[in-house]
């Protein structure tokens, strides 16, 4: 029973990912130009272009190319980029870098949101609650770009406290942990806003339930009511909010990585789209898609565990 409960959502997520990848292949081919023109030199003859096109396999039907690429996936072969390098090699350092940045941002934003949301929920409608609600909405409404520029000016260019951009070391990772701080904050601040609102909302829903009201009437301390009676029930909603947040974080990472020169997957994706480099775009989507799918799956499982068993 529990195996089915795990397998079915996993299969569904996998099917969804495949559809997404097929869409990516189709979408890139709909853009004007192709990888052959993108990697050619101005003034190359039509014959040269045709040779390039054949070398990249672009003369074959789209479905066939997609199928070939998909067939390599189980063996860990993500194909070859338009510039002739294995996609896996291109992602080898950037993908872990993005996972690190995204993972830390997620952790930080969830922790921050739980703390702020709970603090606000201690006295519903109080001054703290109203201040947190306002600040959270404002933070979420700020685009990463604006947050990034403000942080950059204040914490680096004006004060010199932190490095303005990330420089990469010989191992492909940021040369110093201090370089992570600015991109991390730029990603986290809007997401704390989002998650705080989710947490606060979920806690409010729980607070009105009879068993919570009973606990309050029993005269239990507020923080005990919060941790033992309110939070457990709010967990599924918070888990789903977190998973959604992960998607938004990866989207924001593209902007933030470019601004801070962070050696992640966002830069690779932007370049790949510009070059109409289908295998590379699909590789990035597959990697990030798999990461997000795993998170969504985990959220599903938490929800099922909390609610599904009772249902």
């Amino acid at each position: 029973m529990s195996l089915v409960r795990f397998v079915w959502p996993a299969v569904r997520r996998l099917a969804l990912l495949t559809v997404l990848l097929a869409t990516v292949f189709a979408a890139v081919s709909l853009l004007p130009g192709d990888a052959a023109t993108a990697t050619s030199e101005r003034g190359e003859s039509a014959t040269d272009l045709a040779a390039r096109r054949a070398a990249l396999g672009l003369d074959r039907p789209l479905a066939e190319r997609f199928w070939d690429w998909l067939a390599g996936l189980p063996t860990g072969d993500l194909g070859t980029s338009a510039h002739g390098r294995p996609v896996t090699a291109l992602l080898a350092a950037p993908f872990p870098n993005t996972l690190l940045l995204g993972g830390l941002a997620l952790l930080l934003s969830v922790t921050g949101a739980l703390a702020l949301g709970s603090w606000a929920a201690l006295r519903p409608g109080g001054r703290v609650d109203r201040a947190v609600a306002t600040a959270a909405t404002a933070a979420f409404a700020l685009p990463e770009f604006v947050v990034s520029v403000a942080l950059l000016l204040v914490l680096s260019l004006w004060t010199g406290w932190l490095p303005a951009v990330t420089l990469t070391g010989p191992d492909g990772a940021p040369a110093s942990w201090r370089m992570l701080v600015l991109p991390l904050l730029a990603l986290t601040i809007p997401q704390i806003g989002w998650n705080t609102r989710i947490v606060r909302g979920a806690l409010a829903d729980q607070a009105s339930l009879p068993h919570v009201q009973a606990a309050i009437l029993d005269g239990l301390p507020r923080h005990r009511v919060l941790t033992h009676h309110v939070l457990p029930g709010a967990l599924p909603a918070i888990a789903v909010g977190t998973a959604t947040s992960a998607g938004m974080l990866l989207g924001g990472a593209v902007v933030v990585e470019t601004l801070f020169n962070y050696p992640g997957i966002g830069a690779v994706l932007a370049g790949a789209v510009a070059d109409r480099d289908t295998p590379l775009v699909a590789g990035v989507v597959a990697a990030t898609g798999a990461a997000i799918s795993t998170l969504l799956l985990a959220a599903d499982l938490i929800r099922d565990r909390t609610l599904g068993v009772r249902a």
Partner: protein
Amino acid sequence: MSVTRRQLLWATAGIGTAGALAACGSGSGRSDSEPAPAGSTSEQPRSGGTLKIGALGRASAVTRDPHGSQANESDYLIISLLYDTLAVPGDTANTVPRLAASWQPSPDLKTWRFTIADGAKFHDGTPVTAADVVWSLKRLRATPAGASRLPGIQPSGISAEGARTVVLVSDYANADLPLLTRLTTFVLKKDTKDDAVATASGSGPFKLDWFRDGNARLVRNDDWYGGKVLLDAVEVRIFESPQALANALLAGQIDVASNVGATAARTAGARKDVQVVRRPNDLAMPIVMRAAGGPFADPRVRQALRLAVDREAMVKQVLSGYGTVANDVLGTGDPAYARDLPQRTRDLVRARQLLGAAGFDLARSYDLVTTEDIPGLAESATLFATQVRETGVRINVVKQDSKLFWDASWLKAPLYASYWGTNDSVVFFASKTMVSEAGQNEAGWRDPAFDAAYRKALATADAAERAKVLHQLQEIEYDRSGYLLWGMADGIDLAAAPVRGLPRLPGYGRVQLEKTWLAR
């Protein structure tokens, strides 16, 4: 902005390799005698230190093959420091010696003999031989772009004569053949395998310490045949966007932001600890008027538009003043550039007369196609449209997606804004974009007198005679080509205060760092 910059990279790489190789000069020379950009000239160059330099590039397009299509400025920089080309751009001459110490043509200007520099050796200690050069040139010739990189030279026309001499045979007389050996003729060891190219020994002023995802550290080659290299090491960092590149410099994380652009220069202008290095004649953004047919086929109409543009205003507004007014002749950095042609200025009365005489239809509007590939290009089109409106000509600016533009409008549209990221010699532009049979004849211009002058220039060995012919060629171009060249944008680098001896050359000349040093 970062997207547009990327496109510039793509385009300039194309030009740099195909084009520049194919011909010519950029401008200004080796930095030997070049004074420090802002420092006092009395300083003694000193040895030592690590220069951190940032350059633009995309992580997805990183390539390490010296003969591949280099889309990234950062890759080209690294390759140029590790490997040597036969010749390099210069300032007093379009071409100055590098791995080839000298060259001699046959009397018919078809066969050229290049002599390899004394003491030239690879980083592993083995001497560079003619066989290595021949193998490398043939490898270059065999790439998809090979025919345009070495135009007129068949693979069979590349051979060795003994251990020190390389012979190149051209299909036609070519007094400018050495121009072809700049920029992409990187020399590797004979029989280097394709999968070993990344780690192959070069003969350049720096040796590879490490390379990762477009970033690299290079250390001085103490045995370099070209003279004493001053820096201990060069660290190259790849930057996706010009903004991040400028910020890295302003925060003191790097010493040089290479080719970072006018926007950054404006930001950094107020900082006393930052040098703004301007490299004139770097980028051309001509407006192309189709001569082969359509509304601009009449030379009088093209002349009218050249008289309708306000060049000073274009340079001031489009380039924020980081540029110079041009005179409709391409190749402004060339020592042979005709500086004595009268500067064309705005003359609306004459422009209206010419339009009237040509019977130009002022009732309809005309599309001017452009892209946002590079900063300022679309703005130049818009300002141009506003300016010519005063003659009664109505121009409608159409911004196209980059790929669409290069597929559908470039070489075809009646009126479009083009750009050339490597400012090359007069002969380069003549051969690539103006002679009747040129594959990239942007305006479809065919002028028998121009073609004759071009062929005569290529076949003339005598320098004085040749200069005269080149002047005639430029007069014809000035009078009736399909180009309106209103100005030239500067190339702009930012550098930290202690950096000295940076190259001042436009285009790909900016990568020559062997004489650069640090005053700290």
